């Protein structure tokens, strides 16, 4: 018998959805204050339900069918919610971070137009995200998936008065849709082969019907991976995320850092049974994560827009999660997903304070010396930055990233070069985030802050800063005297990593090297940015480094490549075919009718005698023909 509170599961997505509907319809009438209260409280209600369910959690999966959605022959899809350890963790993290960011937004967005609209979209987003995480079948998951995509589009282009924002939104939508197409094809294939879209029966049937490495399993896994790559901004579809920073900062924090972009990670973790049957696809996941974390780390090092640095950092960190998934360390990926949600959301919220304080200044090189004027933002940046880069022992990021680095090395699917790549990524992380901190908060003051955060902005940041520190202890490794609580909690849904392969270094050794990498990175960037800035100038004087800087700054030229290879040819073809070739035939019929009409119209001249003459001529013609 399940706890009674489980029956309230359906309210989790429904409350934000209803609130979003009310805000969309009557937001303007109820006024800003009421809209902010409604928007935040609906998320709080969702969080409280998630919390109550987590407290009452008895370990047995629970399915709630709200209603039968589609029933056509053998194609049966329910509006069904599925609760297991994975969705408990996901809903808790999503609703909690969402709530904090909503509270932050009540103050941060105060001077913006469309305040009520903002909360309506944000609530719709949370509703879609919770649908995505709770769905018990892939079609409902896809509904949530597209719902968050829609909200992402709406919120990137939230300030639609500026054309660039609209274009960024369109780009995000089209690029992620490229991946979604693969996702939908994967759904078709799975239904065609296995006859169901309900995730748990589907995974059971897949295991029963397909052997490891079966072609159908590989193709389906690759197609789902396409969707995950688009949504999670991984190579080669990562180009939309940096541009998505055109949206309001709370949007970047919630959608483009903490929750939506990790949906791809969630999808692969949810479908892990399928990926276990598809080693090639799983290896591709690891490879994509590996390449993305390095490439995005290098790009982050060269950016000078504060939000773009954080965006590339997000891409890079999701690369870590993909790497963890690729080596079969499912719970490590979810662990990093949760800690990343805390510290990356905090980084964005703090950057929002800085940007707002300096009247929408985004360029870090026009900032400086802000640590005394904006102490809270400074300390949040330091704590979250340490967590992101992995300050040993006391930060959450150290444990989650350290676990991924270790698993990339020691899991049966891990290799030494994946491990080295992950460590290099950690080194890059320390470099780019402390470069940002040193440039923005140290040195001489260039712009004086004009706006200072109030309590509604400060409190969520304090809570997130606290979590960025302590969230790591939920999965403290056994080697460091912990209990691996999260991994054990997730174990019924996500199997633990199989017996580790023999490695030269132990887990402690790997953690120590990660710690050394962190300190070396921080010291190097300290040396280059603060102690001896002349070193940076010497380094940047060379033609090679300048070229490399430009290349990395342009995201390895991917945008340029896509522009030349895809966007421009498409536009050129569309231009050339503006007057549709196929249309010529139909336009020809129209022209023929028009010509006939103009000819016949001449005969209708209103002259009665002329008509009589034609009648006479016709009669004579008939007579002649008749008598011949």
């Amino acid at each position, binding site marked *: 018998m399940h706890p009674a509170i489980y029956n309230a599961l359906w309210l989790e997505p429904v409350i934000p959805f209803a609130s979003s509907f009310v805000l969309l319809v009557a937001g303007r009438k109820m006024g800003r204050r009421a809209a902010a209260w409604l928007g935040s409280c609906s998320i709080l209600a969702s969080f409280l339900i998630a919390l109550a369910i987590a407290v009452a959690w008895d370990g047995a999966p629970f399915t709630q069918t709200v209603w039968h959605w589609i029933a056509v022959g053998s194609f049966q899809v329910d509006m069904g919610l599925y609760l297991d350890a994975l969705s408990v963790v996901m809903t808790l993290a999503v609703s909690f971070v969402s709530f904090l960011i909503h509270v932050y937004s009540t103050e941060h967005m105060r001077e913006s137009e469309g305040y009520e609209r903002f909360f309506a979209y944000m609530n719709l987003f949370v509703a879609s995200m919770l649908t995505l995480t709770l769905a018990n079948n892939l079609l409902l998951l896809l509904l949530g998936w597209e719902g968050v995509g829609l909200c992402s589009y709406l919120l990137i282009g939230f300030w639609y008065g500026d054309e660039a924002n609209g274009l960024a939104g369109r780009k995000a939508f089209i690029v992620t849709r490229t991946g979604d197409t693969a996702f939908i094809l994967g759904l078709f294939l799975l239904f065609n082969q296995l006859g169901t879209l309900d995730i748990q029966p589907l995974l059971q049937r897949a295991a029963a019907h397909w052997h490891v490495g079966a072609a159908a399993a590989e193709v389906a896994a690759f197609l789902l991976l396409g969707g995950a790559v688009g949504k999670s901004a991984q190579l080669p579809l990562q180009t939309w995320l940096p541009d998505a920073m055109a949206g309001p900062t709370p949007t970047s924090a919630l959608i483009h850092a903490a929750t939506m972009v990790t949906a791809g990670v969630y999808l692969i973790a949810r479908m892990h049974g399928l990926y276990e049957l598809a080693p090639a696809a799983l290896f591709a996941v690891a490879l994509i994560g590996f390449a993305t974390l390095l490439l995005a780390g290098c790009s982050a090092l060269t950016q000078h827009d504060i939000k773009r640095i954080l965006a590339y950092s997000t891409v890079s960190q999701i690369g870590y999660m993909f790497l963890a998934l690729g080596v079969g360390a499912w719970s490590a990926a979810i662990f990093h997903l949760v800690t990343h949600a805390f510290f990356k959301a905090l980084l964005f919220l703090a950057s929002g304070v800085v940007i707002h304080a300096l009247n929408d200044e985004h360029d870090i090189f026009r900032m400086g010396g802000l640590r005394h004027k904006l102490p809270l933002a400074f300390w949040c940046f330091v704590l979250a930055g340490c967590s992101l880069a992995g300050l040993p022992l006391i930060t959450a990021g150290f444990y989650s990233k350290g676990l991924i680095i270790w698993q990339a090395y020691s899991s049966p699917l891990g290799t030494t070069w994946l491990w080295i790549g992950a460590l290099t990524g950690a080194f890059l992380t320390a470099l780019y985030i402390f470069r940002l901190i040193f440039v923005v908060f140290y040195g001489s003051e260039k712009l004086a802050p004009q706006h200072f955060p109030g309590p509604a902005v400060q409190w969520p940041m304090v809570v997130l800063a606290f979590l960025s520190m302590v969230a790591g202890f939920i999965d403290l490794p056994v080697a460091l005297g912990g209990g691996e609580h999260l991994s054990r909690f997730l174990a019924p849904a996500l199997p633990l990593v199989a017996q580790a392969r023999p490695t030269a270094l132990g887990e402690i050794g790997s953690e120590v090297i990660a710690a050394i990498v962190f300190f070396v990175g921080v010291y190097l960037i300290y040396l280059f940015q603060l102690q001896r800035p002349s070193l940076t100038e010497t380094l940047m004087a060379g033609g090679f480094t300048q070229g490399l800087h430009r290349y990395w700054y342009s995201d390895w030229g991917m945008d340029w490549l896509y522009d030349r290879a895809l966007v421009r040819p498409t536009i050129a073809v569309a231009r050339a075919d503006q007057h549709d070739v196929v249309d010529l035939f139909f336009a020809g019929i129209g022209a023929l009718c028009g010509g006939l009409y103009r000819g016949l119209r001449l005969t209708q001249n*209103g*002259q*009665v005698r002329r008509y009589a003459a034609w009648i006479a001529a016709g009669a004579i013609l008939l007579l002649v023909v008749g008598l011949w």
Partner: protein
Amino acid sequence: MTHMGLLLAAVLFVLGLAGLLARRNLLMILVSIEIMLNAAGLAFIAAGAAWNQPDGQVMFLFILTVAAAEVAVGLALVLQLHHQTKSVDADRANRMRG
């Protein structure tokens, strides 16, 4: 004898048609139509005489009544037209030009 009658009918018909096409005055057009109708009637009588049948004369009586009705309607239309355009010129009544 029959041939002469039909010939006369044909001449009358062509005269009527020529009048119809050539005259612009609506009254003269009506007169031309009357001539054509009577030419047709004459042709019926000539044909009836040729075959010793009464049908030709019966048809002529029909044509006579139809012609009377036609003239009544036609003259009423001409009056209406004159009312609106202050003229009985057929070419002026070309407002239906396409």
